[in-house]
């Protein structure tokens, strides 16, 4: 509970993501506030997803990818040498663009798999946690009668909420969303957005989106990334140009590149 009291949930210091020798984004410094929705927006190729994936060490699962710098959850550096990436990911969950329902598993098992991994094998306890997670992901009412059916039989929007429930079940403090609505229809998108606003009470949320209206609708703070096409010999590089309250970013941008982007002149 110390984290809730603290004004900062995550601190990002001089974070430099690399793909091989190429530094994909210029050093990033950000402070993520707890129980807020932080949106990361920017044109294609600006490295917004890369930065997001650095925040729970998913970045390094890509071949030859690595990151330098510090990312702290509370006071702990997630890149400390004695910290295992899989433990980091249990504290900082992630939901992806493409909804993933594990094909060979039932709806129940899709969520229970993460719980079992955490050492919960008691049937009653499993059932309780699965129900809680499905409630939290606003999916319970729709699936409570068919928990043993294949997760893959759900609609795209339902699968995305299933993915969210799976993240929640593990008990994270922060949940990262990588364009969670870009594969969904408008109604499913609306449901997810409402869900994100709900989840804000219990979790710190960081969302990457290419939909500026979405960022404006739901986020409390917005970080704008842009592409610097001629920064060095390795090609274009992403750069964080502005990071402030969402209202200020959209109504009174400080950086001319932000203004160009949100008014539709670039990207």
């Amino acid at each position: 509970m110390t984290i809730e009291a603290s004004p900062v949930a995550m601190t990002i210091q001089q974070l430099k993501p690399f793909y091989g020798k190429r530094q994909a984004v210029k050093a990033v410094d950000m402070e993520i506030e707890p129980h807020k929705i932080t949106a990361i927006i920017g044109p294609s190729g600006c490295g917004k997803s890369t930065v997001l994936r650095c925040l729970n060490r998913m970045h390094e699962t890509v071949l030859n990818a690595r990151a330098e710098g510090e990312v702290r959850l509370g006071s702990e550096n997630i890149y400390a040498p004695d910290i295992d990436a899989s433990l980091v990911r249990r504290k900082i969950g992630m939901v992806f663009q493409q909804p993933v329902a594990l094909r060979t598993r039932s709806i129940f098992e899709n969520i229970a798999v993460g719980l079992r991994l955490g050492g919960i094998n008691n049937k009653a306890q499993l059932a309780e946690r699965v129900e809680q997670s499905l409630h939290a992901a606003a999916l319970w009412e729709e699936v409570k009668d068919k928990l043993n059916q294949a997760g893959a039989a759900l609609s795209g929007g339902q699968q995305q909420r299933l993915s969210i429930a799976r993240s929640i079940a593990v008990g994270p403090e922060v949940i990262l969303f990588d364009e969670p609505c870009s594969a969904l229809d408008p109604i499913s998108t609306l449901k997810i957005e409402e869900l994100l606003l709900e989840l804000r009470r219990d979790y710190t949320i960081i969302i990457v989106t290419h939909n500026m209206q979405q960022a404006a609708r739901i986020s409390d703070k917005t970080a704008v990334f842009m592409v610097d096409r001629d920064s060095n010999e390795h090609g274009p590089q992403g750069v964080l140009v502005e990071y402030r309250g969402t209202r200020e970013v959209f109504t009174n941008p400080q950086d001319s590149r932000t203004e160009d982007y949100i008014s539709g002149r670039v990207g």
Partner: protein
Amino acid sequence: MSIRTSAPANYRGRKVTDTIMRGLSIVATLIAIIPLILIIGYVTIIGGGAITTDFFTKTYEPPAVSDSGFNLGDLGAPADANAVPADTNAAPTPIDPNATPDPFAGIDLGALTDASVSAEPNAPPVVTDDGAVPGINNDMGAEGTGVAEVTATGGVLHAIIGTLLVTGMALLISLPIGILAAIFLAEYPGNPVATVVRFCTDLLSGSPSIIAGVVAYILIVVQFKSFSAIAGAISLTLLMVPTIVRTTEEVLKLVPESVREAALAMGAPTWYSTFTVVVPTAIAGIVTGVMLAFARGAGETAPLIMTVLGSNNISFDLLAPIAALPLITYRYTESPYPGENTQAWGAAFILMMLVLLVNILVRVATRNRLQGR
């Protein structure tokens, strides 16, 4: 401008080309499939005819001849032409000699049938030593044909057991090795070792099976100075592992990256995501690969000739020579006795059915029981 008149100048040509190409692909499909159907049909019809209860319950028995005192010693005598069943096309079914009053019956080498045999088709091997001269000389005058039939009695139970034992053992060895190696290749693709392994498996899976036989012969049979079932299993392993590795790797690569990421994102270590998420997703393809490997292993003959040698008895001794269905098929096809030729077809038929049966069983066992897919 109507739709018809707006057709481009080369429209007719395109349509003809389209028809020709479709026709060619259909013809090619037929050419490919007809021989397969013929083979399956031929093996089923001829081999199926060899199937009796004895075929499954008995082991090798020496070819039996008529109980009219035909002496085995005469069988081998080259001077006695009638004793050697040279005409392998002779029907193994008993022919009633009286129904075919053939003036040439006495010299027809193909008429190997004897009325007394037809009465007792499953007669045990008869080696009489009562001094009676062969039926040719005794009965022929009376019956019009006196050539004794050389029937193959007994069955191939020893070979069925041998094949199950040797191939099963090879599968037990190659399954974990093959699948774990494939996981290494698919989940850690950047490793330089992976490139070398991939190259070697490609080479091995394309090489003739006799090579595996020679390797097992030199490394195991010669070293231990004995043909053995285990040497056969290892030679089959050499052939099955590359097949399992390559097919498993390919299907593991087909599992979308998003599935792996979803597993990793909930804090699963790589091995957990591999075994509880990635492998179950790809299980149908993996099973197909294993089936291919099993079918290949079960049907291989060349390595078995050099390793398990063959046997006429039921044996469960892994360190001793053992029988196998492909070996029986090979040896019995060369046999001068029509009865054994038929048994060769029967063995081929059993081999085919065995692969089919295992295929069905594995598919039933691994099918997805979730509803709504």
